[in-house]
C-alpha cells in the first residue's frame, strides 16, 4: 500500500466526519418542554412596517424549519385539527390560501407560529390552549412547505391520501413577498 494510497484513505475519513454535521433528519422528540412559546402577552407579532430592522429569528426556528420529521408531523396535525376546513389543501376557502406568496401576517416560521398560537382577526382561532408549542411549530413548518419554502429533500412528495395538490417535492419555491420587508 503506497503512502499516496494511505493519504487518500485519511482524506476520505476526514471528509466523512465533516459531513456528520447535517441533522436534517434528527427526530427531536424532546422530553422536556422548552419554556414559553411565542412571547405571551405582547400584541400579535409586531409587523415591521417600512424599513425597521425585523425581529431576530427565534432560535427554535432551525429545529423545525427544514426538519423532515417535523414537517411530516405537521402534515398529520393539519388533517387531524381540520385546518383544511377553512384553508382546504392550502388553496384557501373561508381562510386565506397558504400555498401562494401572500402573507398578511408574515411568512417566516416564527410569524406563522404566532398566527397559529394567537389566532388572527377574521376567524383564525387561537390554538395556544389546544396545541403545545411543539405542535404549533410543526404545523408552522408544514404550512411553509405548502408554498415550497423548505428545501426539497425535507418535504415528502405525497400523503397517503387522495392526491389534492402537486407533489411538494416538485412545487417551485414561491418568493415570499410579505406586506413588510421581513427577510427570509
Amino acid at each position, binding site marked *: 500500500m*503506497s503512502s*499516496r494510497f494511505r493519504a487518500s484513505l485519511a482524506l476520505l475519513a476526514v471528509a*466523512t466526519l465533516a459531513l456528520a454535521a447535517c*441533522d436534517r433528519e434528527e427526530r427531536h422528540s424532546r422530553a422536556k418542554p422548552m419554556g414559553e412559546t411565542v412571547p405571551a402577552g405582547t400584541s400579535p407579532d409586531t409587523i415591521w412596517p417600512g424599513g425597521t430592522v425585523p425581529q431576530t429569528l427565534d432560535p427554535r426556528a432551525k429545529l423545525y424549519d427544514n426538519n423532515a420529521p417535523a414537517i411530516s408531523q405537521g402534515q398529520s396535525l393539519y388533517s387531524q385539527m381540520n385546518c383544511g376546513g377553512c384553508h382546504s389543501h392550502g388553496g384557501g376557502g373561508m381562510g386565506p390560501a397558504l400555498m401562494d406568496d401572500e402573507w398578511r401576517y408574515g411568512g417566516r416560521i416564527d410569524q406563522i407560529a404566532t398566527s397559529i398560537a394567537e389566532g388572527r382577526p377574521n376567524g383564525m382561532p387561537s390554538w395556544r390552549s389546544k396545541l403545545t408549542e411543539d405542535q404549533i411549530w410543526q404545523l408552522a413548518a408544514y404550512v411553509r412547505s405548502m408554498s415550497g419554502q423548505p428545501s426539497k*429533500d*425535507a418535504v415528502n412528495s*405525497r400523503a397517503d391520501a387522495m*392526491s389534492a395538490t*402537486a*407533489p411538494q417535492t416538485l412545487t417551485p419555491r414561491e418568493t415570499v413577498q410579505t406586506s413588510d420587508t421581513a427577510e427570509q
Partner: protein
Amino acid sequence: MTELERVRAEDQRLAKERQRIARDGPKLTGAKLEARLERTWRRPPGILGWLATVDHKEIGRRYIITALLFLALGGMLSLAMRLQLAQPDSNLISPQRYNELFTMHGSTMMFLFAVPVMEGVAVFIIPLMLGTRSTAFPRLNAFSYYMYLFGGLLLWVAFLLNIGPDIGWFAYTPLSGPQFSPGKRADIWAQMITFTEVSALAAAVVLICTILKARAPGMTLARMPLFAWAMLVVAVMIVFSMPSIALCSGMLISDRLVGTQFYNHYEHGDALLWQHLFWFFGHPEVYIIFLPATGFVSVITETFCRRPIFAYPVVVLALISTGILAFGLWVHHMFATGLPRVGYSFYTSASMTVAIPTGLQIFCWLATMWDGRPRFQVPMLYVVGFIVTFVIGGLSGVIIASVPLDLQLHDTYFIVAHFHYVLIGGAVFPLLGILTYWFPKITGRMMSETLGKIGFWMLFLGFQLAFFPMHFAGLLGMPRRVYTYPAGLGLELPNLLSTIGAFVVATAVGLFVVNGLYSLYRGAIAPPNPWEASTLEWATTSPPPPYNFAHVPVVDSKTPLWDAEGELPVVTGLRVDEKETLLTTVVAASPDLREPVPAASLWPLILSIAVAVFFISSIFSPWAVLFGSIPCAIAAAAWFWPKELNRNPEPVIT
C-alpha cells in the same frame, strides 16, 4: 485503388504478420513460457493499475474481503441489539436508534455480505475450477465489484450521518412510503438496493457466460464440478429474481420523489403490491445465498471423503429443481395478510415440496461420507456442523410452511431462530469451511488447524446457545423487531442466553479472522494441492499466476486430478504476446474460439463513479435522472472504444 482492394492488401500483410506470432506449445513451454505469459497478463503497476485490474482473482479477493468487513460491521450491530434485549424494559438504546440498528443489520447481512461473498468466491474459483484463464467480460466483473462497494459505502456513510434507514430490511409500505418515513432514510435504503442489484446482475451474467462458454475442453456438462452447477443455477436465479426488487424499489423511490401512487390505496394503489414484488425476489434471494453453500459442501465432502459425490445426477437435478421451485413459494411470507385461504394451501404444499430436493442432497452427502473415508480437518468439521444445524432450520421451515402454524409463529422470534439456522447454519458454516479449504489457493499459505478447530467448536456451541432459545422466545409470544419487552412474560431467560451466545459467536468469528490474518504471514507455505483434491484449481500453483494455466488443461472425467497419472493433458496454440483464452461449445465443451481477453482499464471504475453520482443525486432531484445519465453514456462509450485503432492480424470469417 478502391477501398476494397486496399483492405484486401491489408489482409494479405496481416496474414503474413500472423505467422510470426509467438504461441505456447511443445517448443515454447516451461519457465520461458511462464515468464512471457507473466509479462503479458501482469497487472499494470501502481495505484491506477490496482484500480484498473480486470484479473478475476484480484476482484474475487476484493469481493471476499469487503463482504467479510460488512459481516463484521453487521455483527457489531447485532451485538448492540442483543445488549439492548439482554433484559426487559431496558433503555440502553433509544427506539429510533434500535430501529436503525436492526434495519442496518438485516440489510447489511442480506445485501452487503451474503450474496456478494458467494459471488466473490465464485468469481475467484470458477475460472480456476473450469480450467480457463479468465472469466467472460472481466471489465464487467470489475464494474460489478465497484457498484457493490459504492452501494455499501452509501448505506454505511448515511448510517453514520444519522440518516440511515429505520424501516426494516424488507421496508413494507406504507411505513416506508412518503408519509410515514419522512426525509431521505428510506430512499437511501432503496438506492442501496439499486446498487447491489446492478452489481449482482452483472456478476450473474459474467458467471453464466463463463460457465457455459469457457470450460476446459472435454469438460462436458456431465463432468462439470458440482460447485459450478450450483453457481450456474444461482446466476440464473439472480437474473430472474433481482429485477423484481429493482422494480419495486424503483417504484418506492418514485413514490417518494415525484409522487407516483403505486402504494397509495387512496389512489387505487395497493400496499401489498410491494410485498408481492419484494418477496418474489426475497425467497429466491435466500436460495441464492443457500445454493452456493450446497456447492461448497459438495466440494469439501468430495475431497475430505476421498471419493466422488454419490449420485452426481441426483444432486444436479436437486440443484435445478430447488432453483425452479424457489420462485413458486413467495406468498408463504404473507400468510397473515388476509389473502384467500385456498391460495395459501397451494403455497403450503409448494413450501413443503422445496424441502425434498434439499433432503436428497443431504442424503447424497451423508452417503458420500458413509461410503468414503472421511478426514475431519477443519473444512469437514464445518460440513458436519452444517448438517447438524441446517437440518434443524430446514425442519422449522417445514413447520412454518403450514398456514395455521405460521399464523401463530409468523413475525415472532421463532422465525428469527429459523432463518438464522438456515442462513448461518446453511450458508456461513459452509462459507467458513470453504474459506479454510481455498485459503491456500487464494493466498499460498495454510490456515492453522488448531486455531481452526477451536474456532469451529466455539462458533458451533455459541450458535446453539444464541439461537436455540429464540425458538422459545417466539413461542412465548415475543414479536420480531421490538426494541424492548415487558418483564413477567417469561422472556427474560431466553433473551439473556441469546445475548451471551451472540458474544460467543462474535469471538468465534473474530478468532477465524485472527487465524486468517496470522496465517497470511506465518502460515505454512501451501503446495499446489495440499488437500489432494480432484478439481482443476489444484492443478496450478498457490496462489495462481495471473494467467492461471500455462497451457489450457483437457478433462476427460469428473475428477481430473485423481485420474491424471502423473501428467495433465493440455492443448496449446494460444498467443503469448496478447491476453487470449479458449472458448468451448456449451454442451460438449469442444474447442470453439480463441477469445482475446480485454486489457486492464480504468473505465469500469470511472463508469461506476458516474453511475454512483447518477444514483445518489437522483435521490434528491428527478432532474438528476436526465443530467446524470450523460456522463454515464460518455464513460460507457469510452469503455467500449478500442484502445488503439489498428487492426489485429486475425483472418475475418464471413
